[in-house]
Structure formats: structure tokens, C-alpha cells
């Protein structure tokens, strides 16, 4: 691990970590037929970091992302998100944490097909007042370059545009962490690059913490820090000097 490089990328080492994982494991099923998806994972992600979690299929990266996203709870170890132990939270608290602290981007975009672009963004902040909700969604769509597509249904947009809407939705609640699961997996190469550039920009220009899961080594190399998983264990946690020097 290139500690000095990672520290150089880390904006504030004394700030409360966005994530702090200690001995985290996740097993499915019990007894001899049980499957261990993650085992003994220690990880610290600080505010503003852009981290790629890489690994082959079945390495446990999506499981790790679900644990970080408070969609699931570990069977062992602890996970602290901005200082709060989410391993012991109930469903209601986890929902609130996701609503207030975490933004998700999915490989298949996961937009609601019946809602327009702006309504999809509003879905993440549905409890806010109508005017405020609408303004926020509009601003975010403008930020991802989709001002002209606000009233379009997902079926009338390209994959890249749909992923931009998904990014806008993930940013709607001003999250402490943006979690992206194979965000370029369903996009062509050029569009994938554009999406990666957008995510990098959020990190470098807005200090947004981004955790990106990918099986693509080229995508992982665009991240200043890469955590590699194999068989549910962290096998490396490295800084990428090239990515640090060339954030765009």
C-alpha cells in the first residue's frame, strides 16, 4: 500500500471518517452450506476520497457496497458511518441513514420507468416540500447536463443520460457518501468515460466522497485509491499516482 500517496489524496485525515470498518464479515446461511461473502474487512474511507473497490465476480465487492449503503448488516464486525455504528441500527434508522447520508448509483440505473427525469430525482427527496423538491431536482439535472431532458421518461433517454439522472438522484439528499455499483457496466466506452469524469469531478470539485465498485481494472485505475477484494477479503489497498496527478 502506498500510504504516503493515499495520505496525499486524503483531504482531511483528522476529520471523522465517512466509513470505518473493523473486522467486518458477512455470511449467508449457516452450517456447512453457508457462504462467506466477506471476511475480516478493515477499511477507513475519509471525506472527499474517491475509492474504487475492485475484484472479480464473486469477490464480495457488491456485498461490501450493500453494507456500506446500509442495505444490509454485517454478521460480524462493526461499521461506523460518520461516527455512527450502523451495524446495530434497526430498519427505521437504516432508512433514515440512507435518506440523509448515502446516495446510490446502480449499474442498471434503476430509474422508475413511469416517472420523468425530474420526478425520478424528486423520489429521493419525496418528503420535502414541493417547491424546494422541484428546485433541487432541477438544479441537479442542470449540473449533470440534462436541463433539456427534465420531463423525459427514462425510456426516451440514452443509457448515459439515464445514468446521469441516477447520479442526480443520488446527489439529491446531499449525501456524505456516493456509492456506485458498476456505474459504467451498461454503457459504451465513451459514455462510461464521461460518467467516470463526472464522478471524479464531483470528488475533486465538490469534495464528494465516492465509492465505486467495478470489476474493470481500467475503471479502477481512474480512482486515486483502489481496494482490491478476493474471496471476500481485502488483498490490497493502493493509491494510484496517475489518477491523483490527473484527476480529470
Amino acid at each position: 500500500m502506498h500510504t504516503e500517496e493515499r495520505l496525499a489524496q486524503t483531504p482531511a485525515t483528522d476529520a471523522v471518517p465517512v466509513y470505518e470498518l473493523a473486522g467486518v464479515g458477512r455470511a449467508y446461511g449457516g452450517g456447512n452450506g453457508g457462504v462467506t461473502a466477506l471476511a475480516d474487512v478493515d477499511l477507513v474511507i475519509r471525506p472527499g476520497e474517491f475509492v474504487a473497490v475492485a475484484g472479480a465476480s464473486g469477490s464480495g465487492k457488491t456485498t461490501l457496497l450493500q453494507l456500506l449503503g446500509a442495505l444490509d448488516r454485517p454478521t460480524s464486525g462493526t461499521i461506523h458511518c460518520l461516527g455512527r455504528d450502523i451495524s446495530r441500527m434497526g430498519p427505521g434508522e437504516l432508512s433514515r441513514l440512507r435518506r440523509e447520508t448515502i446516495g446510490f448509483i446502480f449499474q442498471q440505473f434503476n430509474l422508475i420507468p413511469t416517472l420523468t427525469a425530474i420526478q425520478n430525482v424528486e423520489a429521493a427527496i419525496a418528503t420535502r416540500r414541493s417547491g424546494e423538491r422541484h428546485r433541487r431536482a432541477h438544479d441537479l439535472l442542470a449540473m449533470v447536463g440534462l436541463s433539456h431532458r427534465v420531463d423525459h421518461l427514462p425510456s426516451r433517454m440514452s443509457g448515459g443520460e439515464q445514468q446521469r439522472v441516477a447520479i442526480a438522484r443520488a446527489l439529491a439528499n446531499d449525501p456524505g457518501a456516493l456509492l456506485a455499483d458498476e456505474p459504467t457496466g451498461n454503457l459504451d466506452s465513451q459514455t462510461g468515460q464521461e460518467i467516470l469524469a463526472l464522478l471524479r469531478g464531483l470528488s475533486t470539485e465538490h469534495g464528494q466522497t465516492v465509492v465505486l465498485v467495478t470489476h474493470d481494472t481500467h475503471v479502477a485505475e481512474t480512482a486515486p485509491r483502489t481496494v482490491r477484494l478476493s474471496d471476500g477479503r481485502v488483498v490490497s489497498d493502493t493509491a494510484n499516482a496517475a489518477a491523483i496527478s490527473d484527476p480529470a
Partner: protein
Amino acid sequence: MFFLSYALAELRRRRGRTILTALGLAIGVGLVVTVNALSTGLDHAQQKVLAPLTGVGTDMSVTRPIRVTNNGSGAFGGLSQSQRNRLRGQLGPGPAVNFRNLKPGQKFDTDSFRATSQLSFPASEVKRIEGFAGVTAAAGSLTLTDTHVYGKAPKVRLQFGNPGSFGGSGGQNGQGGARFQGFGGKGIHFQSRTVTGIDQSRPDLAAVTPGQITKGRYFTSSSAYQAILSSSYASTNKLSVGSSVSFGGHAFRVVGIASSPLGGTPSDAYVKLAVLQRLAKYRGQITTVQVRAASTGAVGRVAREIKTGFSASQVTTAQDLANRVGGSLSDARNLSSKLGTALEIVGLAAAVLIACLLTLASVAKRVREIGTLKAVGWSQWQVVRQISGESLLQGLLGGVIGAAIGIAGAAAVNAVGWTLKATVPGSAAPARGPFGGGPFGFGQAAQVTSGSTLVKITTSTDLRLILAAVGLAVLGGLVAGAVGGSRAARLRPAAALRTVE
């Protein structure tokens, strides 16, 4: 409003399923509306048949019938001594014409009034009954059998056991009586007819109500000698409004003709109570008290109280009258009240079950969408609210369609012009006298008007029924939404997001 926009968008997207669910609920609701409208129509039809029987506001009639027991001997068997004495006084010797005092060919006209099937009792009982709890109004009436004998004295001197007199008894109600011919070809006419004296100040409780008048008018205070005739009596005797008819030696002007209600116990003629009491020498006496109860629910209790408080009385309620009416109308109403209710329950239950299953199927198809919503922070309550809201809208749509189906169904019944037969068998009313069947009507039983009438069924749907039906559909939608919503709320977001759609 986001939730509403989302719900509407979802319902539009799953148009087929939405329509199917709404239609399921609509059929259930339509069934409720149609069956209820039909049931109301059958009720109205029965009320239409019963209205003339029950009067405008009469809930029960109180009489004091002469009771004959099976083990009694003779005509007076089973009667108490006081009842026998009263009966003897009422019956008397019967009508008599003393031909010794008449010259051959001389005209004569005599009436004899008798309370035959019921004992008369003091009119003061009206006040007493009016004082019973649950009674709001009461009015008395006097029904008597008038044996009317008229003609010319025969040229042949007659010899009878009772020298110089001629008597008889019995006869068919309203049939004009027997015609005695002979004795030189000059007829002596016997006519038995029932006359009821009514308290004209209480027309709504009277034995004949203004609503029954088909020709002419009701009583006025202008003259004492006014008569209203039953249509059958008027027809048989070729009498009409303006004609003159004789009772007790007085000429009464016919002011109105009244219809004879099916199943009723009509009299041939109606006159003012005080006039009949005076002419028939039944001063201060009545035979029936018409009673109005405070409410329909109070009728049974009031009837029991009257029976207890008024010895030897018989109380005939509107329900007793209703029970006389049979035929397809009665069958249809029974079917409607029993099968109709079952049909409504089964129909609604099936509709709600279908809605629940379709909502569950819908949730199963939206697992990843629900997982996504949970991932972006939706709480379980928000998910349940969304699914329930969509289901509620489906219920509302189903309710509106169902109400339209129901109204159309009710209108279709009206358009078909369904008619049912109301039948009253030709049997005597319960108060049968001991001397029924005599040639001149002495002791004549109170005959109900038998026969059949066709009643057109006219269904009606009111706003309350429609609102209740829509409410049921919305409730059904909410139940389905709660079932589907709770299923959606239980989905684990991580597992839901892994679902491939």
C-alpha cells in the same frame, strides 16, 4: 403530491392490471348497488300493495273478536258469560217486518245493524289505548252488518212462528243479498251490507283514507249524511257519486267511491261514526281502534302491551297484513332478502380477494423498484403508503365504475318492466264470527279482498347507496393495498435489488 403523481403514473403504466382490479371491485360494487336497488324496488312494490291495507299511518288495528274454541258446544261455546250477554244484546231478534201492519202492496224499508264478528266496546277505549307507551295516535271505528229488507207487502197473508213477522240472517258481503220472490209476484228484497262509521277527523287513521278515493271526494263537515261506497258495492248496485243510498231510513248522499284494497277487509259503505252510532243504536260503541306506533320498531312491544292491557283484544299489525300477501312478489322479496344479501357478501369478498391477489402480483413484479426506493431512503411506511395509495385509487375507480354498473343494472330492470304478482288467497281474516255463512250475513266473517294484482318493479338508487358502494370499493382497495403494502414493506432492500426483472 409526489406520491399522487407517482401512483397515477404507476396505474397508467399497469393499465391492464389496473382495469382488471378496478373491474373486479366494480362488479362486486355493481352487484351491491343492483341488488340493493332491486330490493328497494321490491320493498316499494310490496308497500304499494300494502299501502291501502295499512292506511297512511296505521300500524295496527285492535278488535275484540268473538272467540270460539274447538271444544266449545254450539255457537256460544267458549265465550265467557259477559261475552255471551254482550253478543245476545248485539244480535237481538234480527230484522223484522210486521206485515200485519202493512197493506198488501204497501212499500216497506227497514234496516237492522249488528256487530257480528266482533264485540263492540266503549269508545273510551280509544283514549285508554292512546295512553299506552309507544302509541302516538289512535282512532275508533264501528263496523256493523246492515240487513236491509225492503219491497212491497205481499198480497198473501203470511203465517210464521213469530206471527206476522219475517226474519232471516246471513248473506254474502256486498253481493246485493237474496231476492225473495213470490207471493203474487211482488218482490221482497234482502240485502246484507257492511257499514263502517269512521272518525272523519282522523282520516289518516280511518278505515278508509283519502288516498283510497278513486272518484268524488272524502267526507266534509257540511252534512251528516254523507257516504263513501266501496267500488265493488257501488258497481253491483249501480251507484255513483251523487247517488242516494238508504241506511236506517235516512238517505245518504254518495260523495265518494273508494277502491277495495287487495287483502283488506273493506266495508260496503263508510259513513261518519257518530251518525252510524246513532242510527244503529250503538251510541258510544266502537268495534275497532286503529293505532299508530311511535316507530316501526315499537310495533311489537305496543301490540303486546295492548293485548295485555285490553282484555280479549286482538291486535292485527301491518306485518300480519303483509303476511297475507303472497305470489311471485313475496317470493322475489324473500329471495332478495336472503339470497341477495348472500350474493352481495360473496361478490364483495371475491372482489376484494381478487384485488388482494392482483396487488400482491403487482408487488411481486415491482420488487426491484421497491428495493430501489428503499435504497434511496424510503421508509417502510412510505412504501406501504405508496402501494396502498395506488390500491385506493383503483378502489375509487372500481367504485365509480361499479356505481355506474349498478345504476345501469337498476335501469335495465326498470327498462325490462318486470312485473310480479301479489296474491291474497280468498280466506277470511282471523276474526271469524260464530255465525258465518248464514243467508243474510248475520255473524258474517270479516272477508278479505282476495285475488291477484300485478305490480311493476321500479328500482331506485339513491345517493347514499351509491356513496356507500363507492366507500366499500375504496375500503376493498385499502384492504388490498394493506396486504400488498405490508408484503412490499417486508422486502429486504439488498435482496430486492438483486432481483432480475
